[in-house]
């Protein structure tokens, strides 16, 4: 293979509110059976990238547990493998990762010791399918120094201020790049997926570090945009970044649409995830499920509408759950009403309770796990 992979999964995002108290964004459960990082990892393995580093820092326990074996994504080979880099103290560095560029610089040996000519850098919070080889072909054809995967977004539907936005020349060279602007000037967003020649990347990172600069976007993309040939590779397929509660909710609800399910679940290539060995979902008398996704290990006794149930959710008798996302391993007691909510994983919802959010302000429900004390 011509490229190694790097997945940046270290970040927190304040816009995830309570949801990121437990885990890094890259470990957020998606579409019932997956975690956010599965999409980047599956894209890597499906693009025949054999050697992938995952760089983690913030709240990485949940993510590291998910990556307990590289088998699930077909890594774990003699040629290549999955490498997880947490911050570490060395003789000449005692710092945490101070930014995306710094996190790669601190693991520069991974880049130096590889022989593949290119590096694909992706973030762990994108939900998409992409053949990185196609981007690499484009990168070579454009004689680019850096290629950035971009997508045109609809300002009416997306909050553009949470993206990096670019202005393009006719040949798709990036002329201007504004990072999370207060007032967006463009509507073409960077997807946080980059291709750089490996030696070029080493050089850029070393120079960055020598100048005490730490951020890949601000200190490399924006600073070098007139010096280096930075090109945009545009995609028009599904792409979503889940880095806010609203976009997380919408992304999950997107999977209720048949065309989105077909695209991700039925069309080549597959998305892989850690196998959980749960039994099939069970529908008991009294269950009435409509327009919803249900994952393995669920047991349902109540009413579920327009919702996404993750793995091992128990829904008690006479419950009504609408327009909600119930994360893994939640126990919902009898006669409970939940509407417009995201229920945090491993919650125990007591019987006879009501949680109602607003369609425009999704409520996040965090309860204790009282499974063994009740």
């Amino acid at each position: 293979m011509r490229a190694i992979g790097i997945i940046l999964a270290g970040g927190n995002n304040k816009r995830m509110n309570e949801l990121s108290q437990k885990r890094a964004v890259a470990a957020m459960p998606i579409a019932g059976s997956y975690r956010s990082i599965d999409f980047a990892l599956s894209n890597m393995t499906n693009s025949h990238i054999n050697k992938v580093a995952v760089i983690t820092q913030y709240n990485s326990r949940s993510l590291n547990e998910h990556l307990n074996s590289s088998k699930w994504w077909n890594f774990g080979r003699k040629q290549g493998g999955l490498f997880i880099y947490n911050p570490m103290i060395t003789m000449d560095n005692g710092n945490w990762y101070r930014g995306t560029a710094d996190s790669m610089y601190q693991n520069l040996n991974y880049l130096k010791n590889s022989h593949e000519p290119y590096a694909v850098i992706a973030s762990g919070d994108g939900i998409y399918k992409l053949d990185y080889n196609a981007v690499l072909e484009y990168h070579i054809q454009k004689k680019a120094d850096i290629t950035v995967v971009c997508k045109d977004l609809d300002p009416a539907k997306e909050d553009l201020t949470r993206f990096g936005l670019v202005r393009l020349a006719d040949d798709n060279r990036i002329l201007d790049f504004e990072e999370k602007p207060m007032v967006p000037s463009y509507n073409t967003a960077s997807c946080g997926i980059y291709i750089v020649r490996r030696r070029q990347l080493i050089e850029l990172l070393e120079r960055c570090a020598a100048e005490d600069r730490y951020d890949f976007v601000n200190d490399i993309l924006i600073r070098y945009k007139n010096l280096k040939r930075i090109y945009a590779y545009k995609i028009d397929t599904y792409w979503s970044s889940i880095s806010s509660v609203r976009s997380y909710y919408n992304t999950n609800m997107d999977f209720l649409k048949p065309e989105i399910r077909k695209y991700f679940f039925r069309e080549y290539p597959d998305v892989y995830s850690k196998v959980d060995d749960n039994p099939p979902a069970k529908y008991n008398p009294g269950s009435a499920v409509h327009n919803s996704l249900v994952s393995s290990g669920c047991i349902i006794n109540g009413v579920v509408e327009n919702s996404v149930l993750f793995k091992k959710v128990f829904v008690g008798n006479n419950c009504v759950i609408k327009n909600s996302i119930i994360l893994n391993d939640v126990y919902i007691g009898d006669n409970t009403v939940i509407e417009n909510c995201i229920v945090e994983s491993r919650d125990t919802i007591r019987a006879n309770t009501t949680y109602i959010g607003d369609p425009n302000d999704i409520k996040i429900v965090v309860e204790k796990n009282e499974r063994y004390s009740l």
Partner: protein
Amino acid sequence: MIKKEMIAMLLAGGQGSRLGVLTSKVAKPAVAFGGKYRIIDFPLSNCINSGIDTVGVLTQYQPLRLNTHIGIGIPWDLDRNVGGVSILPPYEKSTNSEWYTGTANAIYQNIDYIDSYNPDYVLILSGDHIYKMDYEVMLDYHKSNNAALTIATMPVPLSEASRFGIVITDENGRIREFEEKPANPRSNLASMGIYIFTWSVLREALLAQKDVPNCDFGKHVIPYCHERGERIFAYEYNGYWKDVGTLGSYWEANMELIDIVPVFNLYEEFWKIYTRTDSLPPQYIAGNAHVERSLLGEGSEIYGEVYSSVIGADVVIEEGAVVRDSIIMQGAVIGAGTHLEKCIIAEGTVIGKNCDLGVGEYAESKLDKKVYVFDLVTIGENSVVPDGVRVGKNTAISGVTTAEDYPDGALESGGYIIKAGGKV
């Protein structure tokens, strides 16, 4: 040096002809079960949960599905540097190459495999039972009795004992007599076909009986050990155990999983059952769909109604279809407006629109009246049933069928259509 205290030999070579068209292209242990599993997952999961990490799987009849399912054993943690799972098909030898002619003969032909692990004990399992059992407890029992052979047994109602192989024990659990399907049983302890042998004893018995035609554990090896006065003990097991060797018991065992708290509970965290999962997505239940009293596998899409059924992974049930008391395996498609009642639909089968399956009066099967009973409609894998046909009870269908195969648009009760090949 390689040394394993106990290794397991899993007999998975049989056809299981009493499952009819379900096993026309796969061995019985590879038949789907419970919306997600295959029958062989139960003994394999029991092995790894009991701490047995070396398992030889003896295959012979239609092994393709078994081979791909087992692979290198990753789902059961049986991918090991030393030991793990090995598929053992019959092989050519410099003299007298032969198929596995009997259960004991199959083990005899693999003495070298067993010897290579230098075991003290060998566990003999069969691939057609649904149960959870800790073989380590059984091994402790075997060791504490200083036994040569321990046979797992379970109490059955005395009235049914005449259908089983019965053992008669003394007060210490030592077996004094065997009775095969006795008319007047003197005990209610039935053999489960699970044996722990002290390897030196089994090895000697296999070599002594190597020329016995169709050498079988029940008919030859165990009587041989008994005659020589070896210490043979009965280990009494009191959990759920089901032989799914007939269409009726197979259907029943699936239906028992639907109970609110099933006797055989797959939802316990303890003693998980593992399987190869090639489908991960969640299932989708559409706005007009209704699902009650059912198990549903991953990735299925339900637009119709499902009651009291076990549905496998990636099944599509189209709008207006109604499925009752049925088993539908992975990848099957049930056309819009079709009604199913007491059907077993094997993998990849496509049922057309507006069909009516499982209707009409009772009639004896014309294909095999011993196999196709219980009023079931049984459809083999990758079959096709055209739009708008009616199919009666105790029927069997296999292969791609077209409207011409159904005179007056119907297959009457007891009828069958068996065609070669299936849809690609």
